[in-house]
């Protein structure tokens, strides 16, 4: 079919004469969605970018001082701050560890769910949903109490006296990691479990008949079939764990001893928003946005290169 023919078909289908109308028709249908997206996504990001270029503090918002254009002043301030780079590296490593642990725990438990009987499965599901439904502040406070040096049951059970878990940098990060994994694995588990249930049982039976081990079935049969689902949960986890705030803020009392447990979001809050430096805060927001977009795009790109359409 040539272009000309196609247009004729489209025209006929639309039932209106004229080429222009036909070209615009799809956009007409897309318009409502685009308007909503534009209002909810493009506009705030545009404002974020704009504010990051201004000197915009509480004094400017409430009209005490005029708003001034600063160019990349906020970004220069940010990039000149040694602490920003330390926090950025800590955030990347911490988020990577959280994503890997969450995926590992979530996938393992999803496979387990398909192997156990109804009653244990129900129990595991309920426990996971309980963790999922717990607000982050509550979860963090409870974990902190469990590991409290004076009153916590963990130290008592382990018999390690009044060891403080939040004093050392790595032990504090590890404690927060446990809480993050605890409250975010249910999403991975439930999603992957639903995916596994949708895999035709003949495929799994065939693999089992060929003598494949559990690990081999996961690696060569389930994982490829579940690829689209795994991509979604991975990207979701990357975004969540990169933006973790509550757990760090509550469990390390706002960034740990001398700020050793700061992550980017808490840093942005303390550096900028708590003292109403909205311009600087927006600059940090833009940097986070760019990093997340880059990570996501690189990840999708890598998958593409392996020859898989998503």
């Amino acid at each position, binding site marked *: *079919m*040539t*272009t000309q*023919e*196609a*247009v004729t*078909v*489209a025209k006929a289908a639309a039932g209106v004469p004229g080429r222009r109308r*036909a*070209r*615009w028709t*799809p*956009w007409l249908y897309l318009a409502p969605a*685009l308007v909503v997206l*534009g209002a909810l996504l*493009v*506009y705030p990001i*545009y*404002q974020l970018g*704009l*504010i990051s270029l*201004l000197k*915009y503090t*509480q*004094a*400017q*918002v*409430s*009209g*005490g*001082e*005029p*708003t001034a254009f600063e160019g990349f002043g906020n970004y220069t301030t940010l990039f000149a701050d040694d602490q920003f780079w330390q926090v950025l590296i800590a955030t990347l490593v911490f988020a990577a560890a959280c994503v890997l642990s969450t995926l590992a725990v979530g996938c393992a438990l999803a496979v387990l769910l398909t192997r156990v009987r109804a009653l244990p499965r129900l129990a595991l599901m309920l426990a996971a949903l309980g963790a999922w439904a717990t607000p982050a502040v509550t979860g963090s406070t409870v974990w902190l109490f469990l590991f409290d*040096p*004076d009153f916590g049951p963990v130290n008592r059970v382990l018999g390690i006296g*009044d*060891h*403080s878990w*939040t*004093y050392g940098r790595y032990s504090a990060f590890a404690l927060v990691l446990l809480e993050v994994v605890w409250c975010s694995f249910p999403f991975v588990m439930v999603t992957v479990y639903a995916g596994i249930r949708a895999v035709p049982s003949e495929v799994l039976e065939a693999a089992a008949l060929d003598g494949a081990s559990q690990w081999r079935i996961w690696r060569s049969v389930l994982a490829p079939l579940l690829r689209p689902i795994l991509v979604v949960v991975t990207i979701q986890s990357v975004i969540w764990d990169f933006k973790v705030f509550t757990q760090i803020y509550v469990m*390390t*009392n*706002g*960034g*740990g*001893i*001398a*700020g050793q447990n700061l992550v980017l979001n808490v840093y942005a809050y*303390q*550096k900028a928003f*708590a*003292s*109403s*430096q909205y311009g600087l805060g927006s600059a940090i927001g833009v940097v986070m946005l760019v990093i997340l977009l880059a990570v996501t795009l690189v990840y999708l790109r890598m998958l593409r290169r392996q020859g898989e359409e998503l």
Partner: protein
Amino acid sequence: MKLSVKLPVKLPARTAVALAALVVATACAPQTSGNSSSGKDEKTGTLRVWLFQEVNNGPKEKVVDAAVSTFKKAHKDTRVTIEYIPVETRAQRMKAAFNDPKSAPDVIEYGNTDTAGYVKDGGLADVTEEFTDWSEAKDTDPTAKQSVTVDGKIYGAPFFVGVRALYYRTDILKDLGLEAPRTQAELISTAKKIRAADPDLYGLVVGGAYTYGAMPFIWSQGGEIAQGKGGSYAAAIDSAAAQKGIKAYTSLFGADNCPAAKCAGMTGNDTVTAFSSGKAGMAIGGDFSHAAIEAGKIKGKYAVVPLPGVKPGSVAPAFAGGNNIGVLKSTSHRTLAVDLMEQLASKKTQSELFDAMGFLPTYTDVRDAVAKKQPFVAPFVKTLASGAKFVPASAAWSQIDASLVLPTMFQEVISGKKDVAAASKDAAKKMNDAFGSVG
């Protein structure tokens, strides 16, 4: 049909341009409210007041209601609505009020460390003239007056002050045959003796995130947070005297008094909790902590003295916390609002507020009078009388406070990441950056 699906692909460039143009056209610069003084000064109408919601707010409401009814007798045709706002979310509420003058109150209670920030934000009205003419204001204690003053102008009336002193366990010190410490050196040695006698107790419980507990050590050595006046402050936290104070305070974090692993992260509230639950021999607590400690298990087994300074018998300068009453710049009832401010911050109201809530009055004569009635406030009054200190009256202070400059400095020293010289130098640099950024 393949091609007909492809057709729209030719369009996006144009559409994207159109969309971008639309976005640029509709989205202008971020919002700025016109928050100048309203210019009006109506003599009747409704005054809106925001006061802080205290933990036990009933008695405060009664005192305030009495003050308001006195005010209303003097001003017929005036209505006063009072709203109690939670302390935790005050920053958001105040920002919202500054941003939208229409829904803003006329009179507010605010924390005295927020003064300079609110002035810079353009929120508080300059009441220098009225304050100077006000007969009761001459008895206001100088530190309290400093807490409403920015660049020589007065932006409100002090409402009450809060100050910290040394709480100690009388039973423990008696068992050890010790007296209440009279110098800073004695304080430190007493703390270590308590811990040595009973390793389950902290000697003097201290916190790495307890800025206002740490500052007296620096001030008593002659150090300062920052020096200067008006718009130009310069950090002084790295001076030799200040470093001596930092060294003294951080020497208390160790296995022989308060182990770093547990105490480095503690805040002021954590230390008071530890003391009131009987886990510490001594603590630095405020007059406002008295009720919490009375409610704890050590009731009747403790006493309070001013925190000792370097020389025998001297008092370490304490931080003068507290709240003020101010008038918003956007009010359309300026004269009435100032009258109500004076009524709420009057000697009579403050004296009643002390009876109801235990908040220390800001007038020296009223304070002396109440100290006679309630002996427990005597050490706090003495601390104030021997000269309390205030944080720099700069809008940069809220930034320094929010980004935890001082706690970070103490914690760096306590955890051994940096020595006193390096940590204080870094803190000074961060503070100077903040002072510089607010101009």
